[in-house]
């Protein structure tokens, strides 16, 4: 009977921002332990939050084999690897004062706006042990997730500033927020024509994720049915789940099943070719596809697929490196979706017209529509590593239809 033990500890401090001021600090320490056992193509799982006795957990997992949940026993290679990316970002004793100073500066530099939401510093320690596989990871990051509201606006928020960093640079953060606020106050007019070059957060590609799951693909539910191994998108288009410790922040290099992707990066699309599928070991065995290291799991749950580390590989540093001239940068959108035939629609609330990377001004509301196949195919221009400010998500740059202009 093979056994897996997974231990995860997260320690976080979270600061709440109300009306631009830090008004609370939350301290969380969370310890989760999981034991999985495999026997006769079945899985037994037991998990605890907090202190636990591993022998008791092991017995409970064995008992849970009787639930009869089918699961293949696919051991991982006998590899030992330990990665420690932890480095102090802000000394613990200076955290409150440092964050209060930052927010005071942000408020003073942007008096027409009010700020809210969270700043979170978190450390993760995770271990995966099974037979001769032994992985451990330690990392940390500082997340600024700040809502920006123009004073007097009837909206719950107008803009946002969101970055995850491993080094604290007050000037860089203040600069990013100020650029966002200044841009919000400016005005521009739409470029002529119904089609324009747009730059949209890489998470847009997440709308298609279901179509890259093994479940969808092998049940003929994917828009890309039968296309595995074929060129389906522009040859510059690369989508992956990136767990490379050099790039991924506070994310273990192994997935919830102890699978390590080739070069720590699981490609779904490489050079426009449909390369891999979201599959757990169970789905991979069921459908006869590869498992590439994209499993997640709750502490006492059966592994399922996870989009952790999902990203589009940049083709250039900045938007202006991808394309010169006018680009509409989509900053805030509202819950787009796709129809059954793959037509994508994204209502845009806040966007800025850029010219050669410089902000011309804020545009009125509109919606982007496009065929997903075209947006990442013939109309795709590239992915810029830097969006609107340093450390932001990458952005997709492509031609798309602009409709419903306000």
């Amino acid at each position, binding site marked *: 009977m093979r056994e897996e033990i997974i231990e995860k500890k997260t320690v976080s401090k*979270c600061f*709440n921002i*109300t*009306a*631009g001021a830090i*008004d*609370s*600090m*939350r*301290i*969380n320490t*969370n310890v989760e332990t999981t034991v999985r056992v495999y026997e006769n193509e079945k899985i037994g799982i037991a998990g605890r*939050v*907090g*202190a636990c006795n591993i022998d008791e957990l092991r017995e409970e997992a064995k008992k849970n084999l009787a639930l*009869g*949940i*089918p699961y293949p026993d696919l051991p991982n290679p006998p590899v030992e690897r330990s990665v420690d990316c932890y480095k102090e970002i802000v000394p613990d004793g200076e955290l409150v004062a440092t964050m209060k100073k930052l927010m005071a500066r942000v408020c003073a530099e942007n008096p027409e706006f*009010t700020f*809210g*939401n*969270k700043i*979170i510093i978190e450390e993760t320690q995770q271990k995966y042990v099974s037979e001769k596989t032994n992985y451990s990871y330690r990392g940390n990051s500082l997340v600024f*997730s700040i*809502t920006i*509201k123009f*004073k*007097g*606006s*009837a*909206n*719950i*928020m*107008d803009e946002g500033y969101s970055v995850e960093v491993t080094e604290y640079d007050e000037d860089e953060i203040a600069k990013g927020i100020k650029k966002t606020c200044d841009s919000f106050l400016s005005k521009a007019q739409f470029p002529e024509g119904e089609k324009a070059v747009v730059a949209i957060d890489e998470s847009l590609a997440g709308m298609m994720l279901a179509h890259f799951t093994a*479940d*969808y693909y092998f*049940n*003929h*539910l994917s*828009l890309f*049915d039968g296309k595995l191994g074929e060129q389906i998108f522009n040859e510059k288009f690369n989508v992956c789940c990136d767990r490379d410790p050099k790039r991924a922040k506070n994310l273990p290099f192994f997935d919830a099943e102890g699978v390590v992707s080739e070069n720590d990066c699981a490609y779904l699309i490489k050079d426009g070719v449909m390369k891999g599928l979201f599959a757990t070991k169970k789905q991979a065995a069921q459908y006869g596809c590869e498992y590439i290291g994209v499993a997640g799991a709750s502490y*006492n*749950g*059966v592994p399922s697929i996870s989009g952790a580390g999902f990203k589009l590989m940049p083709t250039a540093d900045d938007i202006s490196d991808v394309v010169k001239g006018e680009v509409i940068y989509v900053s805030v959108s*509202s*819950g*787009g*979706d796709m*129809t*059954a*035939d793959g*037509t994508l*629609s994204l*209502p845009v*609330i806040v966007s800025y017209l850029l010219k050669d990377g410089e902000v011309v001004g804020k545009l009125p*509301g509109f*919606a982007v*529509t496009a065929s997903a196949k075209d947006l990442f195919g013939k109309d795709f221009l590239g992915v810029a590593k830097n969006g609107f400010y340093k450390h932001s998500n990458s952005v997709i740059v492509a031609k798309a239809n602009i*409709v*419903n202009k306000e």
Partner: protein
Amino acid sequence: MFQFKEGFYADIRIEDRFTTNISIKNGQLEEYNVTTLKKAFLRVFDGEMWYYSSTTDTDNIQKELDSLYGYAKANPNIEEHPIVKRYEVNKDELYQFASCSVRDISAEEKMAKLTSLDALLASEHMKMRRALYLDRNSKFEFYSSKGASVRYDYQTTGVSLVAALAHNGEQFADALQKSGVRFEEVIVSEQEIKSFLDELETYITTAKAIEPGAYPVILSPLATGVFAHESFGHKSEADFMVGDETMAKEWEIGKKVGSELLTIYETGTLKGCGYVPYDDEGTKAKMNYLIKDGRLAGRLHSSSTAAVMNEELTGNARAINCDYEPIVRMTNTMIQGGSSTFDELVAGIKHGFYVKTIKHGSGMSTFTIAPSVAYEIVDGKIADPVKIAVITGNVFETLGLIDGVGNDETALSFVTGGCGKMEQSGLPVGFGGPHIRVSKMNVQ
């Protein structure tokens, strides 16, 4: 029970949560998960800052509390602080589900219910199916340094039957969900499943593309509920107004914000997933009108926001679990029923659309709903199924464009999904209303 220190406000929330999650995919058991987790969340306030921590070591809460006091500075006037003064001091024990707890339903009964329903999921173009059984029973305790002592329970149980179909290179998935607060309430008939699958078959084989544009739209009670939640519910959460005096003035009670046909209310008293008899600051649930006859009637508060805006508590301070502090959240958000029948609403439309089921919704100044099953309306009659990616509109414009309100107000409860706000996602909320007609919405 707990020793609270002088010079601070403090409270302790304890949740003993039991959940069951059974999933059968394409006839094979995929997940069978029973979880019991007891956790506590502690808050200490010194008048300037809040300090929070959570612990699973519920036998040593006092030790955790004493440690948390170490971060704060004693304030002799803390009792006079406007936030602290507002806190209700309720003493109550409100166990509604002790005699019908899902903790006491055997695994065999839950599995039998699910497998019998899964066996009915079959149709021509269905490529994948999933049957889910989910339940939760929570026992809450709340104690504060002001003397509050509240204990109550919460329960939901239900099934979700998901069918994914494909035809001619297009795919479509939808779910039939039934939920309640008692295991025996969750009944799905063979006929209901057949009707659900028949409709999906018709949709996948005949739904046509639409010409994007502005059209009159009828929303089903489900879509109406999402619209109420996304379009106005979030805007009513008062934490978004704190620090913005202009906005507070702009949102003066009594201001006309929508059609005279429109009344939206919010309450934690409805049994279902949005049942919150006491919020996570110990405030008793109330009936709160957000819009009454088209005019702004109220907003949702925690004690912090009520103190800043000098308004009354509403019972809307909630956290998704004992890892997080309570923030202003919705409970059950409803559009109040009117007088029109569904046929009367449809009859008033020459060319428009009917949104029957939805995938998701979101909202800021513009709200967006992604329909699942939708139909064209032609000459006052429901016509062919159509493929719509999203319907959107400016919130305030759309609230003013409601020109028909059905007489079929329906409160809905769910066992999947939930509301996300900031870092806290998946909060169970109920919503609903009647069919409503909006004279113009952007349909894409």
